[in-house]
């Protein structure tokens, strides 16, 4: 068997899950949809003493809409979000890019955010929409801004005993844009990507975490320019790193071009940029 031995917990309630996390702290890893964690276990890149399977915690699967905000439970599956007409426009266009449909059948919103792959779609969506991440532990709940939540590859600001329980997004149905470049069709990892909501502009898959392009946003706030001018500003701001399939130069150039494209797309969708 490829995964290392671990104790398996399958709590039925959030309180039960939080109690296990509180007791075992950094020895315990939550298991959401498993689409990233199971390979990490199989490759023994992680060796947690305990796995806390959250699949039976019904309260984490809820999705609700109120007062212009959409609250997505951390264990909501990508599949359910993809087909939910209550979602913000950016979510609807970005989620079909997450893996293949077989992956979206199991993968979850909270799992993707907590895993924090720099090339993943959800961290970019969260950053572009100024999402609020709700973390819970036995000591209570706290809100974390998307920007403060994501630190780097597989690193978030969650404490060892905390679980991400909910993501809160503003309900925006206009003014969004999303694009990514992959090697092999819709389901592959992004070599570079860009997302925007009105004047909030994000690139992802280019560096150690998604990046808000504040200089580009200032440029747009001062009246903006042509698509080529926007891309030029983006190219000077994007912090790209080298990756296995791509050089930092390639990622910067492609992401900058995508920024121009998504802003044009958002304007065509009635955005205020």
């Amino acid at each position, binding site marked *: *068997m*490829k*995964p*290392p*031995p*671990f*104790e*398996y917990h*399958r709590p039925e309630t959030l309180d039960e899950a939080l109690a296990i996390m509180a007791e075992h702290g950094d020895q315990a890893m939550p*298991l959401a949809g*498993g*689409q990233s964690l*199971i*390979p990490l*276990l*199989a*490759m023994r890149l992680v060796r947690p003493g305990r*796995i806390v*399977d959250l*699949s039976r915690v019904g309260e984490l699967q809820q999705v609700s809409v109120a007062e212009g905000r959409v609250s997505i439970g951390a264990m909501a599956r990508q*599949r359910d979000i993809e087909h939910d007409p209550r979602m913000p426009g950016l979510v609807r266009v970005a989620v079909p890019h997450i*893996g*293949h*449909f*077989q*992956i979206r*059948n*199991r993968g979850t919103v909270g799992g993707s955010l907590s895993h924090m792959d720099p090339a993943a779609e959800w961290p970019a969506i969260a950053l572009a929409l100024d999402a609020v991440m709700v973390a819970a532990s036995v000591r209570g709940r706290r809100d974390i801004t998307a920007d403060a939540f994501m630190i780097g590859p597989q690193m978030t600001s969650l404490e060892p005993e905390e679980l991400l329980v909910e993501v809160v997004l503003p309900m925006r149905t206009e003014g969004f844009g999303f694009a990514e470049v992959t090697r*092999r*069709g*819709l*389901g592959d990892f992004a070599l570079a990507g860009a997302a925007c909501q009105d004047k909030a502009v994000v690139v992802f898959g280019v560096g150690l975490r998604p990046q808000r392009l504040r200089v580009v946003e200032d440029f747009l706030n001062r009246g903006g320019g042509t698509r080529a001018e926007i891309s030029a500003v983006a190219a000077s701001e994007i912090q790209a790193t080298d990756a296995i399939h791509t050089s930092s130069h390639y990622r910067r150039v492609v992401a900058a071009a995508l920024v121009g494209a998504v802003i044009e797309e958002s304007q065509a969708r009635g955005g205020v940029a």
Partner: protein
Amino acid sequence: MTVNGSRWSGDVPARQTLCDFLRDELELTGTHVGCEQGACGACTILGDGEAVRSCLMLAVQADGMELTTIEGMGEPGNLSTLQAAFLRHRAFQCGFCTPGFLASAAEILGSGRRYSRRELRDMLSGNVCRCTGYEPIVEAVFECQR
């Protein structure tokens, strides 16, 4: 759990993946194990009617689920419509990827929607075939939509 219509209950090691359980414990070796990281699609089976990677699940996570593997889809002399279409179109050569393709295609066809060849090509891109070039696979699934 239910596997191909038969009830199974028992204990499994927590760390055993579902594909290893199916192959090693139930001897259902038609579920093929390729990359073991979710990329190739060879191990795809149906879990509660949805195509899932059996390498990306622990066996214990399938507790209570209804699973269908290639062994539950048809048999020699009594092929499913989809299997017959794969055969007619020569949609396989070595056959390693075929059980996974059939599981993915089963969910696609189960939706009752009619997709274009272009859409099918995208939807089937979660399964890798190194022999056919995909054309006959897309044709076989497209034909079954009629």
